[in-house]
């Protein structure tokens, strides 16, 4: 099997065995959900419901307000109880719509076309995706309708479905590929039609042989779709790395994939597109891997958007007593949570619960210039020097060293034997530089 990859990167321990063979299980409909009006990159949505309104599953409750913004729908049938600030998984308190379940589930369809999607126009399909509020399910939550509408002068040549799931622990994409292969392929075909490309590539890390096999089987009769097994290496799933691995092109610094004629979508996004177009369901479901050594029974769960983390964990048998850290996402890029009340959002790929054993105290030493961070950085930066510059307050120097190219994958900090929080410092530096640049302009 020919295996492609990018250069540098790291090999974190995978810990996928917790959930990689666990079938997707739907979570019972929760009694109440908290739906944030910000679940994507871009401007927040404007709620279109008032407290006391009755809403149905799939009903639009907050609408997109800008170009890079995405609609939000109710994920259950019930009554709006409150619109106010609640804890958000990004660590802030942010406006959410609280809905309490009432009565039997009733659905609102996202569109009422009756013809098969093959007969719809590209514009119609794009509108459906926009209406359904689909965002990138990989974690960045970039509105999909924007992503698939490149400016006219940028011809898209390569369409890639990202099935890498390089973050340790997470298996949501893996399970989707195994269990929802048909849906995913059809979603891919819809996206291919929208993008007007003949070929699509599905990149899958070779630690998911079952997914690769199923995908290959389901695309045998489709010459346009090629499965590309990829080396198990972090961060293989980062857009730029994936493009490099699939068609050897480097996305120039400061540019978007579309500048080199590429569009990358996540497995989950393809399925969401399928569901919106074929099943007429908006983006109200999310497949979440609930895992980690602090979870009694790790599972891959199909959850409604807005369900509090506590419900998912309860569904998985609850937490062990020595739980020390709860993350949204994987261990490399996930966000630590201070509360289990935060809701599942569109970008929640996993809930990772770690015990004390997995989060040991790590003493920081001085840098011994071992060069591991340099060997690990997929962006070919020199993290130790950048971090030093940031620590010394020399932000201009950090900028010269290419700090803004950092994709914050965390490989450097993972590898550092001196336990220096390299990526954390770089993040601080990036924010500082952004502030400085904003001030100037």
């Amino acid at each position: 099997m020919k295996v492609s990859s990018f250069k540098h990167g790291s090999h974190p321990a995978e810990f996928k065995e917790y959930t990689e063979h666990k079938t997707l299980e739907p979570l019972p409909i929760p009694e109440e959900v908290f739906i944030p009006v910000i679940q994507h990159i871009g401007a927040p949505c404007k709620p279109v419901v008032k407290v006391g309104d009755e809403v149905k599953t799939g009903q639009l409750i907050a609408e997109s307000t800008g170009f890079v913004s995405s609609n939000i729908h109710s994920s259950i049938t019930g009554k709006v109880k409150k619109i106010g600030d609640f804890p958000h998984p990004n660590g802030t308190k942010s406006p959410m719509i609280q809905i309490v379940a009432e009565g039997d589930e009733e659905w609102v369809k996202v569109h009422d076309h009756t013809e098969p999607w093959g007969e719809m126009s590209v514009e119609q399909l794009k509108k459906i995706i926009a209406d359904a509020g689909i965002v990138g399910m990989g974690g960045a939550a970039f509105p999909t309708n924007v992503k698939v509408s490149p400016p006219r002068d940028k011809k898209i040549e390569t369409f890639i479905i990202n099935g890498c799931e390089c973050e340790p622990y997470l298996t949501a994409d893996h399970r989707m590929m195994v269990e929802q292969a048909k849906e995913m392929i059809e979603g891919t075909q819809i996206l291919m039609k929208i993008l007007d490309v003949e070929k699509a590539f599905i990149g899958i890390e070779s630690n998911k042989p079952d997914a690769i096999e199923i995908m290959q089987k389901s695309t045998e009769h489709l010459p346009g779709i090629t499965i590309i097994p990829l080396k198990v290496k972090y961060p293989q799933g980062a857009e730029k790395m994936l493009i490099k691995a699939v068609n050897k092109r480097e996305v120039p610094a400061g540019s978007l994939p579309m500048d080199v004629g590429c569009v990358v979508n996540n497995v989950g996004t393809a399925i969401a597109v399928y569901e919106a177009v074929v099943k007429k369901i908006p983006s109200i479901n999310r497949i979440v891997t609930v895992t980690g050594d602090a979870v009694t029974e790790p599972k891959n769960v199909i959850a409604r958007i807005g369900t509090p983390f506590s419900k998912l964990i309860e569904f998985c048998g609850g937490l062990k007593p020595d739980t020390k850290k709860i993350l949204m996402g994987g261990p490399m890029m996930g966000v630590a949570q201070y509360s289990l009340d935060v809701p599942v959002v569109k970008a929640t790929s996993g809930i990772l619960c770690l015990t004390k054993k997995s989060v040991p105290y790590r003493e920081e030493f001085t840098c011994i210039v071992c060069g591991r961070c340099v060997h690990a950085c997929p962006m070919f930066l020199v993290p130790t020097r950048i971090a030093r510059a940031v620590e010394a307050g020399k932000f201009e120097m950090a900028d010269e060293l290419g700090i803004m190219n950092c994709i914050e994958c965390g490989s450097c900090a993972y590898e550092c034997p001196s336990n220096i929080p390299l990526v954390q410092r770089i993040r601080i530096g990036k924010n500082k530089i952004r502030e400085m640049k904003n001030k100037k302009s």
Partner: protein
Amino acid sequence: MSEQNNPTENSLGRLVLSSSPHQNSNDDVKKIMRGVVLALLPAVVFSVYYFGLRSMLVIMTAIAACLVTEFLLKKLRNKKINEGSAVVTGLLLAMTLPPSIHLGYVVLGSVFAIGIGKEIFGGLGNNIFNPALLGRAFLQASFPVKMTTWTPTKLMVLDAKTFATPLGGFKFGENIIHNFSDYWNGLIMGNIGGCIGETSAAAIALGGFYLIVKRWSDWRIPVSYLLSVFVLGGIFWLINPAQYPDPVFHLFSGGLMLGAFFMATDMVTSPETKLGSWIFGIGCGFFLVLIRLFGGLPEGVMYSILLMNAITPLINRFTQPTVFGEVVK
């Protein structure tokens, strides 16, 4: 949100909040230091076997002196010893000393290695030169006679009063390596005169491989170092086999094995990029052959590595990787 239903506070105690990543490789500096000590054990065992407990005494003295110096100097700056690199420095320094050396010199060399070699730059990570080699260089420059007075191993049957290391023998025209069994017993197994840690090439290489397998040292440096010595030494040997020693002799004699596997690979003082490591190793090999064949000293491992240490910042600078996606101008 229901205030009473807050599992975070009640059942879990405080959750740790930190910025990603939340997973680390299991290596840390302490572990690496322990690894280096472990990797040197075979060589230590061999040295005790050949030179007796005297070599153990030298090793213990060096380690103790390094620890005490580091402790005092850290105390002066209100810091504490944390990573244990002083043990490694002491052990490595001892490995480069003749087993018969007066213990006072060992202490002096240790103080210099830690004080001037490391702490004065701000401690581990900021030093320019390999501290152990610097300590050894200080002793070599201060007490050249004492540092090159070798004792024969316990297993040697001596027929003459004269005693020289294989390299010294070559340099001053008394070649003592003649045939394969000399190679095997002497150079590879270590039944020769020399420093505590540089007698048995096999024991050193064993430890070196362990470090490489554990990813605690960069394999590129020993490989390029040894390879360049072999090739360059070989070229001279082919030009004039009567005057220059053969490349295999180069590889196994003197402190090359120790230098290549333990000294040159010191992370702090070797380049951080892969290309840099190659350049570093080749440079070391070049200087080594130059010093051995044309210099005033029989052995050049120490100075070849120290020289390359000095230009490591330059190598780092010139081999800095091009940022991903950066258009080459």
